[in-house]
């Protein structure tokens, strides 16, 4: 890989030959965890955008015959809008039209004519001013007292919890990535140490005829790089079908709540760079190991 010749017979070394087969599953696990991190953080960002600055008020349909009920509901909406208009921190409040409501329900119930006949609850979309905090609990109480059937949709609270959970999972996945890096590094450390023990005599000769530590370390490091890269490529080969399958699944869900379940470009780049990272990690670990071990020679 480097075009350098090596004085050490590392090529057919039993103690390092297995390395790619250990690096491969590590890279696979790492890729899956990384993909998880990227997908989650995209989701969280979207949810974050959704919840900040907006609020939905639901007003249950008034009882009675269709026509009468609609009229009653309209009056209730007017009342709610008045209250909202007088609430500090509310930038804008408007009721969704019948078409918008039907549109919202369509994914679940289909675009049936029947929908139009149903006594649908009214929805009021509220935009909040970003810098003025609104006491949602107080507003909720005030609304439900003044307007029968009105309630503040608590999806904000629910989403905030979901975001919190997702963040924890995200950190967990990052922790898993770090852990995998640590385990890989430890594996390379022990493999390098046993390779050094095997080639102890050769190393001693090189040392005694004046080889600098870096000269000896370079040979181990280049070998580790090659093996790490090989393992990384195999691992990536295992990962790609899995990620493609997830992407395909996400594509099918498109338009729903989980629209961003596919891996963003930055995520693909991160996953594709894993073999290089694995190789680099193996190389740096091997080099440090050799330097550390040689430091004990006179």
């Amino acid at each position, binding site marked *: 890989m480097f075009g350098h010749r090596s*004085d050490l*017979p590392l090529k057919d070394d039993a103690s390092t030959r297995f390395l790619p087969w250990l690096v491969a599953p590590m890279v696979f696990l790492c890729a899956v965890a990384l993909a998880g991190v990227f997908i989650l953080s995209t989701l969280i960002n979207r949810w974050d955008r959704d919840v900040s600055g907006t609020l939905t008020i639901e007003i249950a349909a008034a009882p009675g015959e269709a026509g009468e009920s609609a009229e009653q509901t309209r009056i209730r909406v007017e009342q709610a809008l008045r209250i909202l208009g007088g609430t500090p921190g509310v930038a804008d409040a408007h009721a969704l039209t019948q078409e918008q409501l039907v549109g919202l329900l369509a994914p679940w119930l289909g675009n049936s004519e029947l929908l139009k006949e149903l006594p649908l609850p009214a929805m009021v979309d509220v935009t909040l001013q970003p810098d003025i905090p609104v006491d949602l609990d107080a507003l909720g109480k005030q609304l439900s007292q003044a307007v029968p059937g009105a309630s503040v949709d608590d999806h904000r609270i629910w989403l905030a919890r979901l975001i919190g959970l997702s963040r924890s999972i995200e950190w967990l996945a990052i922790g898993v990535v770090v852990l995998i890096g640590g385990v890989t590094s430890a594996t390379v450390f022990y493999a390098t140490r046993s390779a050094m023990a095997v080639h102890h005599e*050769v190393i001693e*000769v090189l040392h*005694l005829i*004046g*080889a600098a530590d870096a000269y000896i370390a370079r040979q181990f490091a280049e070998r580790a790089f090659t093996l790490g890269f090989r393992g990384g490529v195999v691992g990536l080969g295992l990962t790609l079908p899995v990620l493609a399958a997830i992407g395909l699944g996400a594509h099918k869900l498109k338009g729903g709540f989980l629209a961003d379940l596919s891996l963003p470009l930055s995520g693909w780049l991160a996953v594709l760079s894993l073999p290089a990272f694995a190789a680099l990690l193996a190389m740096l670990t091997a080099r440090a190991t050799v330097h550390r071990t040689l*430091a004990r020679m*006179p």
Partner: protein
Amino acid sequence: MRRETADTANVVQFHGVGVRYEHGPEILQDIDFSLPAGSFHFLTGASGAGKSSVLRLMYLAQRPNRGRIVLFGRDVGTLRRYQMPALRRRIGVVFQDFRLLDHLSTLDNVALPLRVAGASEQDVRKFVPDLLDWVGLTDQIHAKPPTLSGGQKQRVAIARAVIGRPELLVADEPTGNVDDQIAMRLMYLFEELNKLGTTVLIATHNENLVSRLRHPRLHLEQGHLRLG
């Protein structure tokens, strides 16, 4: 201190050097000697007298338990680790057990000191075959040590020790496995090198050799070293 480190006329100086292994007795005691630049010495002594130990101290494979060793005007005890490789490259070593690398060809074994010192492949191709010709190993240039005879291995080891034109050459029983005729030829190689300025120290049992070549002898006996 200052007097000795400034003394570059001596390539090697031992001052009250003592060596013991583990918790055993000192096998070398109060060793004092110096090798002037360009000198040629034999190191003699019975088996187990400590010849290899003296040489190991000189090529920095071992540290003395007491005393001071000065190489090329530098106190070895005060050297930093990173300074050692450069110093080692000024010393050519023929190990008693050859220590050839079995997986490398004769050519690559002999080229090792050049490569370790960062020489170009061009230099390797220029110098190594000539030297191999001189020690009579041209036919074995691509052979690996396991297929060589004892005497051939010895010559590879010697070629490796001298290829870098070291300022100091230490050889441990360099003629132990060859007949007298080849032994003399190898000795002439050392003498050639010596004429070019290399300081030479050869440990040997071979009394015949020592008496034929008129070089001063350092003799080890019961842990002490004396000249004569």
